[in-house]
């Protein structure tokens, strides 16, 4: 357990910055809870969701956070499973962030249920044919597995369990993201989904989103607690992020090529790629441009900023592009009408045969942001209560420009 060589210190609580941060997150959570109360009290008709677009903005946030959660654990896996010592010092923060992001995502998911009061039912009634039910088990198990993994990193007496726990956690996160991808990949009814490539795509997405969120939290927490963060590590994380972004772009391309190959799916592909309005814009500008190509340019191309700043910039873009990508998958996929009678023109009083509109309500956005705040509060409390943050990540040189 090499991580024991590093020094870890807790974040000092009740400082002005700490209080301001927690007050800000707390305010967002209170607003989100107010939105939940309103949506639950009035019913979902106050949201933008309908009987055609049944999963809306809360699902965009929830899927993003859940996918990012498993990806955030990769940094720990790099150190423990793949033996990269540089990353071992980041293992504790990586595990904390994984749990925090998952908790935030699940909070959004649960509070968007039509009956959030029946959480106990979801935890006690399982239809084992359902990917959703499997995911409930995978999510709960992830918390436990990562908890044990974190314990083996923090307690030297548990050191002998470190490697096995790391392997289990790594395997679990892969299965978990596969399960999340399969929620969509097994839906044959919807033309935008129903492709096995959804599983590896979601894994690639998780690698990119999780690392981007990790870089942001690492950089901000180090800056706020005045800890030294070397440029070499940032450069390494940025190059890794570029690799993950490229993988995400590759599987995205593979998904669409697969879809185009399917007879009869040309319509939905034209919708997403060409004439789908906001969905097409979010695909090309948000997902591919801002969240894909630009981070690649920042990671590997030329620019004049310090590498830490570049890592931050690329990470912010990956997060924004990721939200756009999840929107395109979740909302864009539902906006395209079901094909009840292939080759025919259809219409009905139930909106058959035409593209479904969806505009998120402010309530849904508040709930989604509340999930982000929940994740960040858990991360902050974790860093405050336990020695999870390295006291410094010193490196020889501070890389500047593009020569890293």
């Amino acid at each position, binding site marked *: 357990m090499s991580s024991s060589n590093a020094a870890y210190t807790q974040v000092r609580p009740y400082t002005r910055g700490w209080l301001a941060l927690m007050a800000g997150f707390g305010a967002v959570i209170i607003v989100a809870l107010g939105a939940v109360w309103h949506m*639950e009290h*009035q*019913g*979902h*008709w106050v949201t933008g*969701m*309908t*009987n*055609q677009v*049944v*999963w809306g903005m809360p699902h965009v946030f929830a899927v993003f956070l859940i996918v990012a959660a498993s990806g955030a654990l990769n940094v720990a896996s790099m150190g423990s499973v793949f033996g990269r010592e540089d990353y071992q010092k980041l293992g504790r923060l990586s595990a904390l962030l994984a749990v925090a992001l998952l908790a935030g995502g699940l909070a959004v998911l649960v509070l968007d*249920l*039509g*009956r*959030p009061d*029946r*959480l106990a*039912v*979801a935890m006690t*009634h*399982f*239809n084992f*044919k*359902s*990917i*959703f*039910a499997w995911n*409930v088990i995978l999510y709960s198990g992830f918390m436990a597995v990562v908890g044990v993994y974190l314990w083996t990193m923090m307690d030297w007496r548990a050191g002998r369990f470190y490697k096995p726990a790391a392997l289990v956690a790594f395997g679990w996160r892969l299965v978990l993201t596969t399960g999340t991808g399969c*929620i969509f990949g*097994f*839906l*044959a*009814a*919807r033309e935008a989904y129903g492709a096995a490539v959804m599983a590896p795509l979601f894994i690639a997405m998780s690698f990119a989103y999780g690392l981007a969120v990790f870089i942001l939290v690492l950089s901000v927490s180090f800056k706020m607690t005045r800890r030294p963060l070397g440029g070499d590590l940032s450069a390494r994380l940025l190059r890794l992020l570029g690799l993950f972004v490229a993988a995400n772009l590759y599987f995205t391309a593979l998904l669409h090529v697969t879809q185009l190959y399917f007879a009869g799916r040309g319509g939905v592909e034209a919708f997403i790629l060409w004439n789908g309005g906001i969905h097409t814009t979010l695909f090309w500008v948000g997902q591919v441009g801002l969240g894909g190509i630009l981070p690649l340019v920042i990671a590997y191309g030329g620019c004049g900023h310090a590498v830490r700043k570049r890592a931050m910039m690329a990470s912010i873009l990956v997060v924004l592009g990721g939200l756009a990508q999840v929107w395109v998958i979740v909302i864009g996929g*539902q906006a395209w009408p*079901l*094909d*009840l*009678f292939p*080759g*025919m*023109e*259809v*219409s*009905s*009083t*139930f*909106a*058959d*045969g035409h593209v479904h509109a969806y505009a998120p309500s402010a309530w849904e956005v508040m709930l989604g942001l509340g999930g982000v705040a929940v994740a960040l509060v858990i991360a902050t409390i974790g860093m405050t209560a336990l020695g999870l943050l390295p006291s410094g990540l010193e490196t020889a040189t501070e890389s500047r420009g593009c020569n890293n």
Partner: protein
Amino acid sequence: MTELSRRQVILASGAVLIAAPVQARAPGEPASARSRWGLLIDTGKCSAECNVCVETCKAEMGLSGHDRPLTDAQYLRKVNVRDPATGAAHSVPVMCQHCAKPACVDVCPTGASMKRADGIVLVDRHICIGCRYCMMACPYKARSFAHEDQTGQQPYLPRGKGTVEGCTLCVHRIDEGRPPACVEACAAKARGAMLFGDLNDPKSDIAQRVAREATSRIRADLGLEPAIRYQGI
């Protein structure tokens, strides 16, 4: 309630003939896999202007909406289908297809979406958590989400805000030995385009017609084996 005309009385007697073979289930007796309830809909007898089945369904199920078509529940709808190549047009009643292999039942995490032994697909509102995954999985868009408080409920159809619902094939009537309300109304007030019965009973009209005549199922390619069959599309 309006008086029935002589024509409607005569047509209603036809409905009794169409629906008569249904066997009532004794109280306490479980549904049996010996039966497989289904419908045969002749779209040639179904005009685009006619909404008798839809209106009857709403009344039978107490589906009082809020005049919000995108969020109000619809168990049964008329889908206007037109072939762009030939211009041929049909108006097709579409409801829950009560599939033998229902995608909604497969994906439901809690088991709230369920298939009875006799093939009727239902939602147990007591364990539905309102996740709406069944709505994502249903290729027929046959389910609705209760987006708000419900009023004017029928005692045989409890409806709850935040849960998913859909056509029950009028299971409350079937268990009493009566046909679904839409079938009865179509026979009484329209052209009798719907035939209800037990697909497993070789003596039933529906089984004999399905055996004798060409019928089709919507999205048969998905392999869900719906119990609702169509003629003329």
